């Protein structure tokens, strides 16, 4: 590989990695607080993209198809889908909170199918165009082309993640979240409204996924009911690599996964069809040799 190619793949990896990181963050937060692998998270991302597209088509009439429209779509979608996350938690997961771990895992699968099936029924499996005026203009560094859109996307997702990290580590609610994730019962005894903290976690995680969905929809220009499936898988992988339950771990895992994919496509001697083998092989290696991920703490099983 020439240097240009390495730089280009680095850029590619960072862009797709920042999407993975956004989605992985929500995955990881929910897991941290109620130890649930929320399989519906990928579908939340897909719903976010659809809500964003609907808002975008409406506000586009007044503000055009440029950045303003995308930002409106982003904010509204994050709010609406964040609330959807709260509703799912309230009706699907809360009644199961004291049930065996497997039951709630299956509930999560069910929630995923409900969201996915509803989207399929409503859209008829059509691929919708998310056409923006963002364009392909950008800067060229030798043969490497980086569009302004790509720069803004990466900056926006880093800002969202940094905001989230600040919220979790600096605010009272963040402290409550961390307390609940360590010991739910003790937190309740300390006067923390556990239900509220969990609802807040779902709101924030879902809002981040929706933000990722709108950005991905606008960036790639297409939205369909199945787009959350692969994204959910990748976000899970990113969360595991980074250390599930850890906020900085999810970010690191996402970026790392993006880079693994970009360079996995350019492996010497084999073609790009081996990329997923390479990526998910890495996941298996992590699960076997370092299940706590890069930044995860080893969990001491309470007896």
């Amino acid at each position, binding site marked *: 590989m020439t240097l240009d190619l390495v730089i280009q793949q680095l850029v590619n990896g960072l862009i797709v990695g920042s999407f993975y990181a956004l989605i992985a963050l929500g995955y990881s937060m929910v897991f941290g607080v109620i130890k649930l692998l929320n399989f519906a998270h990928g579908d939340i991302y897909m719903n976010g993209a659809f809500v964003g597209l609907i808002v975008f088509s409406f506000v586009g009439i007044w503000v055009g198809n440029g950045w303003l429209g995308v930002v409106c779509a982003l904010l509204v979608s994050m709010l609406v889908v964040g609330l959807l996350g709260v509703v799912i938690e309230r009706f699907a997961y809360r009644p199961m909170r004291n049930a065996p771990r497997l039951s709630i895992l299956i509930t999560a699968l069910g929630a995923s199918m409900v969201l996915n099936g509803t989207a399929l029924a409503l859209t008829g499996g*059509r691929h919708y165009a998310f056409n923006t005026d963002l364009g392909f203009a950008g800067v060229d560094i030798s043969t490497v082309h980086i569009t302004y859109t790509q720069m803004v996307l990466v900056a926006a997702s880093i800002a969202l993640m940094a905001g989230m990290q600040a919220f979790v580590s600096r605010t009272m609610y963040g402290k409550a979240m961390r307390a609940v994730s360590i010991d739910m019962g003790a937190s309740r005894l300390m006067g923390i409204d556990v239900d509220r903290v969990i609802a807040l976690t779902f709101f924030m995680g879902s809002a981040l996924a929706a933000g990722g969905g709108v950005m991905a929809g606008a960036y790639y220009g297409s939205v369909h009911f199945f787009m959350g499936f692969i994204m959910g898988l990748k976000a899970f992988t990113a969360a595991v690599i980074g250390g599930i339950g850890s906020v900085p771990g999810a970010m690191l895992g996402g970026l790392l996964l993006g880079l693994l994919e970009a360079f996995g496509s350019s492996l010497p001697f084999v073609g*790009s069809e081996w990329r997923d083998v390479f990526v998910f092989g890495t996941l298996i290696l992590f699960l076997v040799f370092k299940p706590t991920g890069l930044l995860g703490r080893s969990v001491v099983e309470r007896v």
Partner: protein
Amino acid sequence: MVVSFKRLACAIALAGLALTTMAAAADIKIGIVAPMTGQLASEGQDMENAVKMAIDAANAKGGVNGDKITTTTADDACDPQQAVTAGSKLVSEGVTAIVGGYCSGAVLPTLKIYGDAGIPFVIIGANSTKLVAANQGNAFLANSTGDMQAATAVELFKKNGYKKIAVVDEGDAYSSDLAKLTAEAFKSAGGEIAAKETTTAGEQDYSAVVTKIKSSGADAVFWTAYHAGGALLTKQLRQAGFQGGIVLGDGNNSPEYLEIAGSAGEGVYLLSPPTVDLLSGAADFKAKYKEAYGRDAGAYAALSHDVGDLIVDAITRAKSGDQKAIIEALKASDFKGLAGEIKFTDKNTLQTSNFRPVIAKGGKWVAVE
């Protein structure tokens, strides 16, 4: 007395029936088999209408060899089981020849029925290579099979002066097969395959593959899979500043492609089956069809009309309703219709591909002249 009168009436009626059947048998009867119900009923309706249009025109000119041609339609609903029932019905009605067939899956089990009965059968839409293998010699494929698309692709590459091609598929049986066939055909035609890439269906980010294609120095990209991925790939290639040509396989023949790809789709080539909108000589046919049936001619109407003409032509050359003679006449066909030339190989498939390249201009597919 009353009873015997009834008997007499019955006898007369029966005799009359026998006479009319005999008269009908002297005529040429063409069976049309198509999906008249179910999801693809609209295509089936088009096929029936277009074949009838051709046959009505022949009858208006005095029929073939002095005989009038009649038609009878059987509904296969694109369902293998119903297709067998429909096929048996046509055989028992004693048809001279059969045309039609839209879904390969529904046509496949009927090949034996028609083959055993020795009835000439011209298949209009169905084009799986499995049909070629199951053919007993009486069936003819009037639509190009998948592997002919590779030939059309290579022809387009050469015409546009592409020397190095990147082939991209989605890893499924259809698209990887087309990618492989095209790569082989292009190599043996003296071209170079700069890259052969595979993407994952359902994924949105193709940037890593795009970067590889760009750095491989390919003049053009050939995408063999479906429109959803095709639109994303097109957009991302143009976004990365790829200036070369983009060619799409027939799985991209969808308005959704143009919607999603937007301005990035401009100037992209598509290998299309001979749909009526893209045929330059079909304007007159389209107008007549609309006048006769009150609806727009669908994708396969032109090819169905050609097959109607073809069977009339074959029966004329066979100089009788003899089925063996008609099969021989079909084998020797040298026919030029709206959708292109129909000449058969020794396997009863088309000699020349009827796929044709079209180009995206102003958000529409238009024929490449």
